[in-house]
């Protein structure tokens, strides 16, 4: 098989673009449903534009960007959650999305039961989950709470459990989306140590607003702005330019709305 050559690149994106349909008025949506074949009543809202990206096996990519720049959408597309509007994507390997898993828990069920579901969602067999269960429980470190309904968990405990499941699915690609900020310092360190170790064998896609974490874990950083890659390369260089930009371009409250108007105008 040609796997020796193709397995080198685990994520390959070509000209990825993602647009949502944006309606100015509530009625426009109904018009689109009834008369969509005649003309479009929505403005395309481009969240991602022309993203081309190659991630090699064993790389650790840090993704930077301000809120709403398209980081999470990019990860969603890579995880196969949502289809790109144009472009092409190849992913080679089992993906474990860390933060995502915590919000899939069923509140009525116990931690133990959610471990079974979480494992299955990530493609593990029941027998595999059962075999690893003690190890998962130990890593999560939530003790007796394992048999309580998840609705009684704190946010931190949910994150602990979610991270612990993801740490045990033997993923080839780990997607960490601002996951660790809710855990306490000791657990954060445990997770970072684990990720550090994971990097020896797997590929990491890491979204964080903590530049120290990105510096420590990543071999390459990608800075995304308004759906495009603005800069990529050595983490130290990218972080420096990103910080400089943050100082100059103050937090603009009109950013989201004016961005929409600009894009709407561009869409016409």
């Amino acid at each position: 098989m040609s796997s020796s050559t193709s397995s080198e690149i685990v994520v390959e994106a070509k000209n990825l673009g993602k647009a949502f349909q944006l309606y100015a008025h509530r009625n426009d949506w109904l018009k689109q449903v009834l008369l969509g074949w005649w003309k479009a009543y929505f403005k395309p809202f481009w969240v991602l534009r022309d993203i081309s990206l190659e991630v090699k096996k064993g790389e650790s990519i840090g993704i930077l960007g301000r809120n709403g720049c398209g980081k999470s959408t990019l990860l969603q597309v890579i995880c196969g959650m949502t289809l790109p509007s144009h472009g092409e994507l190849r992913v080679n390997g089992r993906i474990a999305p860390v933060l995502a898993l915590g919000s899939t828990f069923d509140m009525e069920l116990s931690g133990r039961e959610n471990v079974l579901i979480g494992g299955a969602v990530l493609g593990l067999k029941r027998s595999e989950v059962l075999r690893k269960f003690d190890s998962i429980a130990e890593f999560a470190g939530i003790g007796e709470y394992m048999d309580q309904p998840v609705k009684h968990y704190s946010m931190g405990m949910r994150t602990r459990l979610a991270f612990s499941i993801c740490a045990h699915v033997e993923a080839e690609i780990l997607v960490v989306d601002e996951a660790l900020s809710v855990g306490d310092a000791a657990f954060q360190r445990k997770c970072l140590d684990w990720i550090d170790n994971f990097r020896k064998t797997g590929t990491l896609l890491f979204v964080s607003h903590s530049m120290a974490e990105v510096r420590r874990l990543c071999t390459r950083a990608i800075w995304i702005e308004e759906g495009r890659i603005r800069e990529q390369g050595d983490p130290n260089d990218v972080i420096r330019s990103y910080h400089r930009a943050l100082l100059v371009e103050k937090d603009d409250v009109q950013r989201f709305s004016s961005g929409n108007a600009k894009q709407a105008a561009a869409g016409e």
Partner: protein
Amino acid sequence: MISSDRPSQRLILEAGRADRQYWRDLWRYRELFFILAWRDVAVRYKQTVIGLAWAFVRPFITMVVFTIVFGKLAKLPTEGAAPYAVLVFAGLLPWTLASSILSDASGSVLTNSQLVSKVYFPRIIIPFATVMVGLVDFCVSLVILAGVMLWYGVVPDWHILMLPLFVALAVLVAIGPALWAAAIVVKYRDFRFVIPFVVQIGLYVSPVGFSAKVVPPEWQLLYSINPMVGVIDGFRWAILGGDSPLYLPGFAVSLLVTAFMLWLGIRTFRRTERGFADLI
């Protein structure tokens, strides 16, 4: 760390092209199907006092009411020598199975929105997993049916062996429209109000409380366009045997309608499921 016994997983996405490996994915996620089915059963009677007993109480009371209203008050004829209560219950079983699958499965993608919006797996697993809940309740009802038949001294003959076939048919009748609705309701939430209405009306236009033979012969074929007619007829044929002969042309029509709706349901679901995460 990475075990070598598991084949590497590949995901190829191209805008506007259907995912060719979908059915292979479905097989790979078969364990998820069983776990979701088990979860649906486990959650169903959580925080209820009498738990699974609800699966006994509801069909039993419905049977008593229907027997009084249709058999005693309206004085509708039964089939052959069968007691009216058995006739009603033989219709109520498949109806409850099909209608609970239709209501559960059609809302299932929305109720599992937290899963759908956060992780990838073939979404069609979700509505199919809800079938198991209906089947568990159905098995409980079977026990009541056995009790009622024992009470009236009705002994089934070899026809009863065909019952599993009609159980499968009841599931198929329901899952087709349910898949269609589960996909549509994600975008058009209006259908959340349509499904309970369809179930409510369906109870009266399907031969649940009465025999399908009440319908005049010249309308029989047309009546069978409602696929539940075929299913319920089949159930009565299997349970009451010679007392309730199967009307074959009508049964064939019901089968055709079922097959068409199943095809339409799967097609609609497959075409829209990739967009679920954007709409939820």
